[in-house]
């Protein structure tokens, strides 16, 4: 664990060198880094910047522009609750309030036990199955209280 810093940089270097020949490689590299570490560790930014001949500030600017990239690790599960119009029409306000209450956290927060991170999302393309959510990349439609209770129990297992 003491060597975590160098280890991160080494793993990032491998990823960067794998992808840097792509046309416009920065987003694929950041996605891959986040996939590897669960977030984009700040130690990886200089590695990326040097390989792509960018300034640290430029890479940082890109990372912070996009909602997807995290600066801190997420929980073991990531639950995204749709808050866009079609889901609003089917009670997504209630869904958000209920899941916050069940998990005891708000949006952009992670439960103390590290089980789950809760995030709002604006449309999942499940608008004819509203209200909708996505748990670790798997779509869930027609949410009701019962489904939310099941989800909140499942993520804590």
């Amino acid at each position, binding site marked *: 664990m003491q060597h975590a810093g160098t280890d991160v940089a080494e793993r990032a270097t491998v990823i960067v060198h794998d992808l840097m020949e792509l046309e416009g490689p920065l987003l694929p590299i950041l996605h891959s880094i986040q996939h590897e570490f669960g977030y984009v560790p700040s130690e990886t930014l200089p590695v990326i910047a040097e390989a792509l001949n960018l300034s640290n500030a430029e890479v940082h600017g890109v990372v912070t522009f*996009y909602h*997807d990239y995290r600066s801190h690790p997420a929980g073991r599960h990531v639950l995204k609750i749709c808050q866009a119009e079609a889901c609003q029409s089917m009670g997504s306000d209630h869904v958000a309030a209920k899941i916050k209450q069940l998990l005891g956290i708000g949006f952009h927060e992670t439960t103390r036990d590290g089980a789950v991170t809760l995030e709002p999302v604006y449309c999942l393309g499940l608008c004819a199955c509203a209200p909708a959510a996505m748990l670790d990349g798997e779509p869930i439609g027609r949410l009701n209280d019962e489904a939310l209770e099941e989800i909140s129990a499942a993520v804590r297992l």
Partner: protein
Amino acid sequence: MTVTIYIPGDSGALALGAEKVARAVAGEIQNRGLDARIVRNGSRGLYWLEPMVEVETETGRVAYGPVKASDVAALFDAGLVSGGSHPLSLGNPEDIPFLKRQTRLTFARCGIVAPLSLNDYQSHGGLAGLRKAVGMTPADVVRTVTESGLRGRGGAGFPTGIKWKTVLDTAADRKYIVCNADEGDSATFADRMIMEGDPFVLVEGMTIAGLATGATKGFVYIRSEYPHAIAVMTAAVDIARNAGILGTTVLGSPNAFDIEIRSGAGAYVCGEETSLLNSLEGKRGVVRAKPPLPAIQGLFGKPTVINNVISLASVPVILDRGAEHYKDFGMGRSRGTIPIQIAGNVKHGGLFEAAFGMTLGELVDDIGGGTATGRPVKAVQVGGPLGAYFPRELFDTPFDYEAFAGKDGLIGHAGITVFDDSADMLKQARFAMEFCAIESCGKCTPCRIGSTRGVETLDKLAAGIEPDKQIALVTDLCNTMKFGSLCALGGFTPYPVMSALTHFREDFAPRPMQEAAE
């Protein structure tokens, strides 16, 4: 003979339990020792009936739905493998009125074929358009697309053939085809359905665009919220490359064309074409000023066609059947068919592809069947978060670009969100401003700051503080945003806000105390 059972692998069907159903069906096949196989097809787009299971019988397909995993054993008891009758029987799916009333050109195969089977694709008419294009001059391909009247389905409705002609006529050592699969608008899922259910039609459409313009490289920029679509498209591109559809010799011709799949990173504004190009280049997704047009200086400064998924996926059928065939559908300057997505608080939500010209009322009341809650329809929002809210009084508006513009609305990517009478239009107007504030790329002050001011002003209005003054302020803000924004995020946010204010003024009146206090 082996019986084929279709269970959609479409995200919408998965969201409603299709995976559990597939596992239960596999279990029954095994336990009963049946000679049957499961195909994971796309969705037909009848989401109130998903998961919809179909069986291939001697007399055609028989459908059942909505099927729960707990229904599966009883369905097999009722003789599902031979189309036996059961309370969930729907008969021949093509006879369900919601499907029967459609004109499926772009979605002809979606929900019918195995998405990643090139055999299925070709036996249902796939590649016929590309084969024709290979034997034509680029100028003739472009002319066919122009003559079909196809307009961009991503929102702006710009004639696709004219865009292609600019790229064809601009000399360069490298050109690109970029497919905009960012589909960020609420109420839209047509792009997702086609990518998950018939991915080769998009590969074919992009390849035709490449031949027509001299572009040799294509990118599909898919939003990260669509992991299943990304997986299917990635697999489809590999299969197409191995089959010689993509690569250095497209279908054995001297033309090269290849495609790469890219994932977005959760920014709504990256659906705007120049922001998307910046994002592909690895930059912040800020909007570029036009000119230069992407068709002249686009991706990496090279001539670039950027088109929506549905625009590109409509090209193969146009090449196959001819410009006239496509153009014969529709009304006025809106030619062909449009995949309309009916969503939100609606009884029969789903994908409805039809010629332009049906009225909003027909779509919401007849096709959609009214609200899911059974309460009266109060408002519909057409065209996503930047689209106007229409009251019932405007339900006679035909689905046509110009007709919607004439009523201060827009078709956009053709999503319709239905709201029942519990909707609070002040709240919806506030959300439009809030969404603009969250998603603004930050380049223009009216969009970035104006939207935040808009939220504050509407909050004051809701609290009953000097209502007349707030309404005047919001109207003023909307004008500034409309005329002082570089792109439609800031420029069109006034549509939902002002339409809510205009058509539902009563929701903006001071509220009784107990409601304001809740």
